[in-house]
């Protein structure tokens, strides 16, 4: 009477067993995938944080370069002008005394005081790697060891040669081959242009302009913003919360011999470092004002969604016109014992300085600043 061994029952048992095994394997696979997914999320978080921090580096470079190297074709003299501490940047060939020290009429922002880089304004940069940067060059072959006459690499130095040869090792030795400078010529430039500007006027224009198209895979990853603080942002009144020291004080004798208060410190910035695809827009209204809705499918919700997945870090930095540390380049003639006064000291030259000043301090902010 038993039906336990009927063919139908056996087929059913086998199905149950196979289904059970498959379910177990599926469960294991799902658990595995979930683990991988959470690991991936965690790794992406680290990558985003790292990208955001790289933006601090980029923003600092931007602040340095725009302080002195210039705006357009104008070389400028610093966020506080090095000539009279006026609120800059002011071109090198323009009078920094024109207007007032807080509203110099020759500042690059004088014509539009509510636009960047005027104090109280912000700029935004979406970072992507250009296909070819402006005036792109490539280095020649490594260490060709072609140096000019009078500079044998096994020779020793004297006052004349060090002027010709530039900066060398920490004791002024010429014996390190790696220290030999490259020597280019007009027919064999080193470095050489990626697009040779000598070919035609069009090529020259391309050389200067570069190719702004973003390289594949580099767009929508990170951005930075720089807000230039007003004097009220760092007058020590604790508003905003990070305004704990008055950075605007000081009084002294200017170049004209007049004793007057220093112009306020205009070299402090709030840097916002972002990793994500919002292109650095702070709000949807900014997107609309810039006419960039298409970058976000014309949907504010999409923009908000992107913002929600971003990592944003805020820092404050202060630019300084100081160009960098002295370096121990060169050496005393011969090998005197320390401080022999009769040996000439001609080696008081600095290491290669920054041509754009330096950053006096950086400070991470733990809360969102009111303006960025």
């Amino acid at each position, binding site marked *: 009477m038993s039906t336990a061994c009927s063919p139908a029952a056996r087929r059913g048992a086998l199905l149950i067993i196979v289904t059970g*095994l498959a379910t177990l394997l599926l469960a294991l696979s799902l658990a*595995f995938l979930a683990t991988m997914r959470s690991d991936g999320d965690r790794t992406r978080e680290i990558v985003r944080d790292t990208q955001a921090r790289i933006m601090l580096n980029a923003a600092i470079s931007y602040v340095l370069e725009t302080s002195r190297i210039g705006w357009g074709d104008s070389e400028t003299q610093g966020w506080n002008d090095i000539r009279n501490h006026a609120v800059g940047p002011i071109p090198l060939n323009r009078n920094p005394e024109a207007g007032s020290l807080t509203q110099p009429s020759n500042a690059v922002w004088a014509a539009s005081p509510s636009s960047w880089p005027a104090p109280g304004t912000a700029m935004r940069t979406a970072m992507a790697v250009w296909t070819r940067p402006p005036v792109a060059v490539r280095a020649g072959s490594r260490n060709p060891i072609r140096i000019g006459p009078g500079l044998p690499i096994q020779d020793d130095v004297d006052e004349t040669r060090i002027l010709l040869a530039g900066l060398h090792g920490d004791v002024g030795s010429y014996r390190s081959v790696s220290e030999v400078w490259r020597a280019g010529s007009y027919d064999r430039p080193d470095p050489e242009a990626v697009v040779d500007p000598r070919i035609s006027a069009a090529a020259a224009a391309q050389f200067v302009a570069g190719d702004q198209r973003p390289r594949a895979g580099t767009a929508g990853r990170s951005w930075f913003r720089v807000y230039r603080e007003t004097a009220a942002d760092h007058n020590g009144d604790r508003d905003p919360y*990070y305004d704990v020291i008055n950075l605007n004080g000081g009084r*002294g*004798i200017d170049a004209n011999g007049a004793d007057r208060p220093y112009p306020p410190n205009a070299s402090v910035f709030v840097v916002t470092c972002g990793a994500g695809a919002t292109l650095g827009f702070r709000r949807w209204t900014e997107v609309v004002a810039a006419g960039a809705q298409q970058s976000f499918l014309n949907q504010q919700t999409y923009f908000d969604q992107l913002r929600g997945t971003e990592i944003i870090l805020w820092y404050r930095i202060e630019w300084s016109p100081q160009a960098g540390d002295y370096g121990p380049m060169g050496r005393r003639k011969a090998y005197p014992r*320390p401080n022999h006064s009769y040996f000439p000291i001609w080696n008081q030259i600095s290491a290669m300085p920054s041509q754009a000043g330096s950053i006096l301090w950086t400070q*991470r902010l*733990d809360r969102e600043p009111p303006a960025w």
Partner: protein
Amino acid sequence: MRAFTLVELLVALVLGMVVALAAFASFRIAAKSMSAAGNLSRENRVIAQGYFAAMSEADFWYAEDDPFAASGQAQRRSYDGAGGPVAVGTDRSHGQPFAEMDQSDEFWNFNLADQRTWSRQGEYKCTHFFSWSTGSYAQVGCIDHPDPSGACAWMHVVQDRLYSCLGWNGYLDYVPSPWTLGFYLGCRNDTDPPYNSFNLATTGTPGGAWAMTAFPDEFWMSGMNAYPHFQASYHAPEKALGRSGIHIYGISTLFSPRPGWTESGANAEYLRASVGTLVDRAPTYNDLVPRLPGLSASLPHASLTCPGWPELSVKVLRSSDLLVTGRTKATIAVSNPTTGSRHSISFLPIGSTLRGARQQRQWPHWGGASLDR
């Protein structure tokens, strides 16, 4: 009903065993994969935790100074050579990186157009510099220099304030680049000792304007490490003009964590770190390497100490040397007791500088300390 034949039974048994074996092998592989994946996942979680802990330390300096508890603020005052607390500016005392400091208004709004910010430190020499006659550059500028404009004294006062309040490492971090490191003390006459910007007598050579000591003894001998750096070598003191120069030939300046935040329970070296540079010239002279455990901030990570989990070690070392001023080096090490593997990752994050960290401690929601004035 037809029963199984023996052959059928044997075949069924063999097939069943094959299926069971295959299933067992599959499950074994799957379980091993899951175990390995889980293990790697835990390692990833630990590494991520270490990464963010290191970044947080780079940004906020918690290991050096606790913003919220006085017990973690050992580096907010001055000490004598034996570690006893003394008033800021006391002779042979050592300021600390988070001590209070008063500076003139001009310092906070640094104005390169003002002649006061221009160097008047000469060539690091005085008339009796290690017994060689050199001339007195202290006449160019010094604390209380008689120049009526005050320009010849300003930089010397500023540097003395930085050094006296913040110690050697704090001074080095705050001093604007590329200032010449060093300052001349004030001197009233040929017999009284020189004095610093706090108007306190400082160990040095009395002798008036023609024999003025270049620096406070502690600054020159301890801070700049004069003996191994200059006297025991053929290197001219003029090379120590700046923050790079002072660090040539294996010399570093470091910060130190507070007690309890060092590596392997080592004694915190914050007093030594504030005294002066550290020399790494093994094997003949090396006071750096043996002290590294007390100079490395080792961050606690109690949230990830479940038994059997990968063990995390996060170290952050803040140093300045010949190539870099203000380097922060983070090292994350993970050792996995299950697999026996050990990984170590080092990187150099950009975080807050000391000046930024001191301002953080003055935020209202961080206690509103008054450190910079």
